């Protein structure tokens, strides 16, 4: 798939036709006759130092995709290439070197930190697992990490409950960059935080990216936040990417009817701009039994007969990749 970013450098991550189907067990015998097609044929690339924003409603599979890339799940089919090496089917020890390079920041900063460990223990653990350094050098590095994310050094002996949500997210970020990764999967890193804290964390993420040349896969449902931080944005709907382009272009010239309604639904903090929105009706259908043809067709304001029968393929319209049958996008 061609990328809108200049193809000078080799992509750090290349995902091709990735599928993640979870078996759904039913009946007395718990036979898996159906599957939840959470991610169903997704391809994209991320360049070094680039942020790809991934936007979609809950249940569209964006978190599952993130977890596949961090190899917390083993995908059903397709491939994930990290710096040219296929890591899709690696297991156990063979994955260890990639774990250093691909790290993850989770949504809920309370649940993702072990409440019985001190901050020092939490931040030291990646080095112990990867067998890096001795006690003294690890302690020095932990202090450095706290410094980088803007927490006082005395936090080392404290426990997660002693920190606020924003501070805990800083700890989660410190842990994710401990091993100098090249790619960080950020799964809704600011959704659980208050508005005034969100901007602090976003600034930190942007600063870290510049300093360490990190690539981000930034998953979120808040489009304004995603646009702020992303170089390119992919819009997901029910296990598929329906549109991909640069942040500016997605917002100013959305092509796919779903992207249009998604952008139109964002409340704008300006009381002078109360415009009538294009509201799409209905909910996201179940990924266990997705609609035929184009998966968006039951909610699409411009649905045609063809959409019900035939699934559209991603095609290039101007500088967008769009997955839609309409001619006048």
């Amino acid at each position, binding site marked *: 798939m061609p990328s809108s970013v200049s193809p000078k450098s080799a992509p750090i991550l290349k995902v091709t036709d990735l599928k993640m189907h979870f078996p759904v067990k039913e009946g007395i015998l718990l036979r898996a006759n159906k599957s939840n097609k959470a991610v169903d044929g997704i391809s994209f690339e991320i360049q070094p130092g680039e942020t790809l924003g991934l936007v979609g409603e809950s249940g569209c599979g964006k978190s599952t995709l993130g977890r596949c890339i961090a190899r917390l799940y083993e995908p059903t089919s397709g491939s994930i290439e990290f710096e040219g090496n296929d890591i899709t089917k690696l297991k156990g020890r063979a994955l260890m070197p990639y774990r250093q390079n691909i790290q993850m920041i989770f949504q809920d900063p309370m649940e993702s930190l072990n409440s019985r460990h001190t901050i020092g223990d939490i931040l030291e653990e990646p080095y112990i697992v990867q067998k890096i350094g001795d006690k003294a050098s690890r302690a020095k590095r932990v202090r450095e990490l706290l410094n980088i994310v803007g927490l006082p050094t005395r936090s080392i002996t404290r426990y997660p409950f002693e920190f606020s949500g924003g501070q805990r997210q800083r700890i989660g970020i410190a842990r994710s960059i401990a091993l100098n990764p090249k790619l960080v999967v950020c799964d809704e890193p600011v959704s659980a935080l208050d508005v005034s804290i969100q*901007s602090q964390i976003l600034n930190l993420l942007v600063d870290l990216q510049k300093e360490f040349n990190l690539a981000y896969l930034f998953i979120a449902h808040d489009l304004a936040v995603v646009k702020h931080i992303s170089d390119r944005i992919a819009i997901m709907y029910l296990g598929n990417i329906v549109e991909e382009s640069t942040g500016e272009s997605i917002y100013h010239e959305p092509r796919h009817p779903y992207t249009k309604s998604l952008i139109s639904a*964002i409340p704008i*903090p300006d009381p002078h701009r109360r415009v009538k929105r294009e509201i799409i009706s209905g*909910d996201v259908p179940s990924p266990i039994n997705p609609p035929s043809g184009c998966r968006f067709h039951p909610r699409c304001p411009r649905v045609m007969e063809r959409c019900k029968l035939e699934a559209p393929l991603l095609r290039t319209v101007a500088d967008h990749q769009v997955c839609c049958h309409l001619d006048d996008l």
Partner: protein
Amino acid sequence: MAALSINNLVTEFDTDEGRVRAIDDVSFTAKAGQTLGIVGESGCGKSVTALSIMRLLPQPMGQIASGSVELDGTDLTQLPIQEMEKVRGARIGMVFQEPMTALNPVHTIGRQLTEVLLIHKSIPPDEAIRQGVELLDRVGIPSPDVRMTEYPHQLSGGMRQRVVIAIALACKPDFLIADEPTTALDVTIQAQILDLIKELQSEMGMSVILITHDLGVIAETCDDVVVMYAGKVAEKGSVFDIFDRAAHPYTRGLLKSIPTLSTAHKSTLSVIDGMVPGLLDLPKGCRFENRCTHSEAPCGGQAPKLQTVNEQHQVSCLRWQEL
């Protein structure tokens, strides 16, 4: 049509560490037929304000220590509990944040919806069911007669929130208090729900108090706004006063810190440093003093009273005129 006025309300909670004031001297008026927004960060007292109005504070820890909540001249805080039960649901409806926990998982939608009708109106059960189906249809639930017999887990989040709204509106209340009604929902569903509330409001002439942390939602739906910070009113005024002429440094900071679609890509967002103070060790003076970039000696010493900017725009800041 009715107006609801909250006067000098103080609500306290008993905790292991002593008594804390969750809201302190809060006053505002929700005008008839209009939408009032209450905005603030978590822990600022927005939800406690709503629970105080409804007298649904967790017992026995929470109590209204002083102040009044007047609905058409009747002080709700002084009503005997039996009288208050007639107000809840019938005159003031409430929509909660989490549509899963607001509904009882072991009862059908129909039973939960008709319950409110049977309690407040003396109508026979079959009439209640008929009205229930009508209500579900009105809030945009497809095949409402089937849904009446289903359980909450069979519905999606957006559909559940529609059911909660249907229950809140069943007796055509004068007031609807919506506490973060769309926070748990996706943007496309949020747009549907906010539109539904607006539509029903103009149809039934109802007043709405909308509690949210999302300034975008406030800007799109509200006539008047109350900005709360650490249990106090920081600023209140019309939606244009707040967004165009914000006088409180906190409101300004909040408005500046949110990325909008026009914010420059990867630019540094302005931030409000620090955190909301804990209710157990509140600063003596202005509660925003430790985070405020404009604080001066007098700010730490005395708590500012609400000062009038214009007829309806008031701000709790000593230095607003200089800023």
